[in-house]
């Protein structure tokens, strides 16, 4: 048995001490007809070397983003991960601990979360942040619950309005969670410029408890977040913004815009794309909502001798105390991902994050201008500012463009027809510090070969 250290002598002595004849006797209370003393049918055991080879072979059937130019983003981004992130996050004291229930033995994890909460609040331009949620999509759901007063809370306003600029999968998750709750989920379409139509918002928000929007939107467009927040709030709705944790270094923060809460997918902050998870749900809000927040919160305090230290706090919000009346059911979150994001943000710092955001912005704009010059190609929202992603109209269906790019050894952008058949000729292209100027030239060269058929 691979990870069981007992010798036969150990087992014999322990059984004797317990007073049973053999290991199976420990399962005496289990009905015999459901007990399989010799185990279940199972594939043969692999040695460590065999297992490693087996998984290397399987992994070799995938095409890594790092192996060729890639322009795929759409909610999961290929940014460089500094070596210090992997090195420090691999330390066993972080990796193999659990939720810091015993604060004296967990000051490392607790202080990291305290630093993380501070950094996330700073990014969002808001006052407080929690210790993480599963991902951006579930963070959005939790923020909606928080702002409406709890999952089951049914106030006067029983409507939640989602901008269609929010990632389509996030909107699907919201719908799943609300299916059995006494609320109506309504979508507000973006206008022809890929931005919120403020008049339509004013009307829609009038009966809404919460309005949620994303900027930069799923389509890459940047909203006038101040105007959006003002309009929704004037109509009596609270606002949550889905933001980009790297873009926010240069873009209006949710706090500056006037949002009551902000959520984000924190994956770009030092977390591998790893086929979509685990990623990192960020949630920040204003102090007045602290006692309605979901999930863990770490606070600073002092010990018996007056030394500063950290503890999990305000736990009466949580499931282990409040049970069916808890603000959320979350228990295990994504602590290790929060650690990675903390190290990542500390490594880049204020200046580094701003520089990185600017590189993405510059490369995306350079590429977008050049693509728009190609025959048959045009920007989908030419008047609207964007950050690192841009929606491009193609002369042929985006799926076809992608096949052509693949043949040229390039991983293309997202075919927006995947989520909206009307957009089958639109491709969402993503540019980061990993898409080098040479990669962009290769993309331009390959796109130039695409002609309307």
């Amino acid at each position, binding site marked *: *048995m691979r990870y069981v250290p007992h010798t036969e002598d150990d087992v014999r002595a322990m059984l004797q*001490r*317990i007073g*049973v004849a053999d290991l199976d006797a420990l*399962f005496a*209370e289990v*009905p015999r007809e459901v007990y399989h003393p010799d*185990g279940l*049918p199972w594939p043969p055991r692999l040695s460590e070397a065999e*297992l490693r080879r087996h998984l290397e072979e399987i992994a070799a*059937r995938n095409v890594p983003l790092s*192996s060729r130019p890639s322009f795929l983003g759409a909610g999961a981004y290929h940014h460089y991960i*500094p070596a210090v992130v992997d090195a420090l996050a691999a*330390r066993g*004291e972080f*990796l*193999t*601990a659990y*939720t810091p*229930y015993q604060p004296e033995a967990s000051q*490392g994890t607790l202080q990291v979360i305290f630093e993380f909460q*501070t950094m996330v609040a700073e990014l969002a*331009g808001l006052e407080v942040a929690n210790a993480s949620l599963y991902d951006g999509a*579930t963070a959005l759901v939790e923020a909606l619950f928080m702002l409406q007063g709890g999952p089951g809370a049914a106030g006067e306003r029983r409507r939640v309005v989602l901008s269609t600029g929010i990632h389509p999968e996030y909107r699907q*998750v919201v719908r*799943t969670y609300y299916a059995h709750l*006494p609320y109506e989920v309504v979508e507000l379409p973006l206008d022809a410029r890929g931005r919120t139509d403020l008049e339509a918002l004013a009307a829609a928000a009038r009966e809404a408890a919460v309005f949620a929007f994303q900027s930069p939107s799923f389509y890459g467009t940047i909203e006038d977040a101040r105007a959006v927040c003002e309009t929704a709030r004037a109509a009596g709705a609270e606002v949550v913004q889905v933001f980009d944790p790297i873009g*926010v270094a*240069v*873009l*209006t923060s949710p706090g*500056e815009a006037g949002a009551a809460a902000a959520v984000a*997918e924190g994956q770009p902050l030092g977390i*591998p794309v*790893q*086929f*979509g998870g*685990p990623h990192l749900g960020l949630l920040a809000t204003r102090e007045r909502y602290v006692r309605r927040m979901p999930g863990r919160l770490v*606070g*600073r*305090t002092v010990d*018996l*001798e007056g030394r*500063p230290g950290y*503890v999990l706090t305000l*736990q*009466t919000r*949580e*499931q*282990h*105390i409040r049970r069916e009346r808890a603000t959320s*059911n979350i*228990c*295990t979150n*994504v602590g290790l991902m929060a*650690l990675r994001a903390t190290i990542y943000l500390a490594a880049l*710092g*204020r200046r580094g994050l701003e520089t990185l955001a600017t590189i993405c912005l510059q*490369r995306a*704009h350079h590429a977008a201008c050049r693509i728009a010059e190609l025959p048959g190609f045009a920007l989908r929202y030419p008047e609207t500012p964007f950050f690192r992603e841009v929606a491009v109209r193609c002369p042929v269906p985006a799926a076809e463009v992608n096949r052509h790019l693949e043949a040229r050894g390039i991983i293309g952008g997202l075919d927006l027809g995947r989520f909206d058949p009307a957009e089958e000729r639109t491709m969402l292209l993503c540019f980061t510090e990993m898409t080098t100027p040479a990669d962009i030239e290769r993309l331009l060269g390959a796109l130039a070969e695409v002609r309307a058929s």
Partner: protein
Amino acid sequence: MSAGVRPGQAGGAGQGPPPELASRTIFEESRPGRMAVSLPEPGVPSPGAEALLPAWARRAVPPALPEVGELQLVRHYTRLSQKNLGIDTTFYPLGSCTMKYNPRLNEQIAALPGLADIHPYQDPDQVQGALELFYELEQLLAQLTGLEAVSLQPAAGAHGELTGLMCIRAWHVSRGEAARRTRVLIPDSAHGTNPASVTLCGMEAVPVRTADNGRVHLADLERKLDERVAAFMITNPSTLGLFESELPAMAERLHAAGALVYLDGANLNAMLGVIRPGDLGVDVMHVNLHKTLSTPHGGGGPGSGPIAVRSFLEPFLPVPRIVRGEDGRLRLETDRPQSIGRVKAFLGHAGMVWRAYAYLRAHSGRDLAGVAKHAVLNANYIRVRLRDHYEVAYPGMCMHEVVLSARRQKRLGASALDIAKGLLDRGFHPPTIYFPLIVPEALMIEPTETETRETLDRFCDAMIELAELAARDPEQLRQAPRTLPVRRLDEVRAARQPVLRWRAEPAPADRPPLAEGDACAAASAGVPATR
């Protein structure tokens, strides 16, 4: 061994830098102009942000992130890591959490570029290996659970609970019964996530009592079982570490009454490879890859909580589903009209899928059965060694964990919390305390199968010494721990005057408490740190 934490060595807090420095945050290390990364030049002819973005789109006040050099960064987080206990440093018998060894091979595998650097929106032909691992893990979990269909989408145990309940609810909807079936019966020993998940699903949690033998109170279950019940949500082995041998009979009653059985699979380690929950009458369950299948707990996650269901519930599982086409290729299917929808973005915690698959393939069928058997052996060994020193919550053989009560010690002046803190000074992470809620002064000990007999003996010796100390000098225990970077922390203050983030200006000491919820803060502070 880490320098900051030296369990058993007096004055550990005195080691290393002076305390003011030792607890400095990264923000206090910051000096404008430092940076720990090297970024590329833009390399394209393009103006700066001011030219590319209109004023209304630009941030006015930059985020106050710290600025540090690479060595300062490494030293800061290395020092912080040294203020932690983990499985790698310390026996960590945290009940209900299955703190078994996390194989290092699996970390290396998860870091392979072919697994770490792939995107969920790549063409399926570019990620056949990844889809294969998802597909194979689903098959292996189906085999282990004795259930037919698996979704790997849920992100943790609680997320699996919610997803499973949503499937149950959707099934009742499909039969036109959802309007009246709004109750979920839950034993009073259950974990807090169970009732919380029920509320999130728009249903009502109804507690069922525990009988004197620590099992579900059958008559109470019977009394509450009517046409309003949608499901029975049970944990087996229960959070008391006991096997619910009547589960098959209970499941039969539930099914006859038109309700389904949900199993909280947190304790699957006790049954791994020897008992298939499906054979016990379970309809839906979740599996915790971060407990049973050895993926690291990461200081509080990530977890992964796949659900397994009987075939009649398969149409309700979250989309997308991974299906094998006639050509043998795997693809994602989203067109499932009865599905509850998505519960998270993308496909689930793939990084945990790789690790769990590797763990399972490192074992034969007999090996996996051995995992369960040795986990149960170790728990019973601790039970027998400690039963004369602590009250055992319920008599008889336990499964993978044993729940003791420090009631006797409490009467002498040392609570379960004091015992836990005493363990810290003796080089052990404490068990789970004050859970399950129905056991006063609970100490819930789950040793797992990966510990040696010597470690278990040293732990039991320490527990016995603590029981003696509780009788002789409880005050000494109330002062523990003394050997860690900090002593007991003021949780009341933390909750009354929350300081949830670092600020350049220290908050004034006389800052008034938050206006709202003082009683709430006090209650929170009074609850010892457990689950």
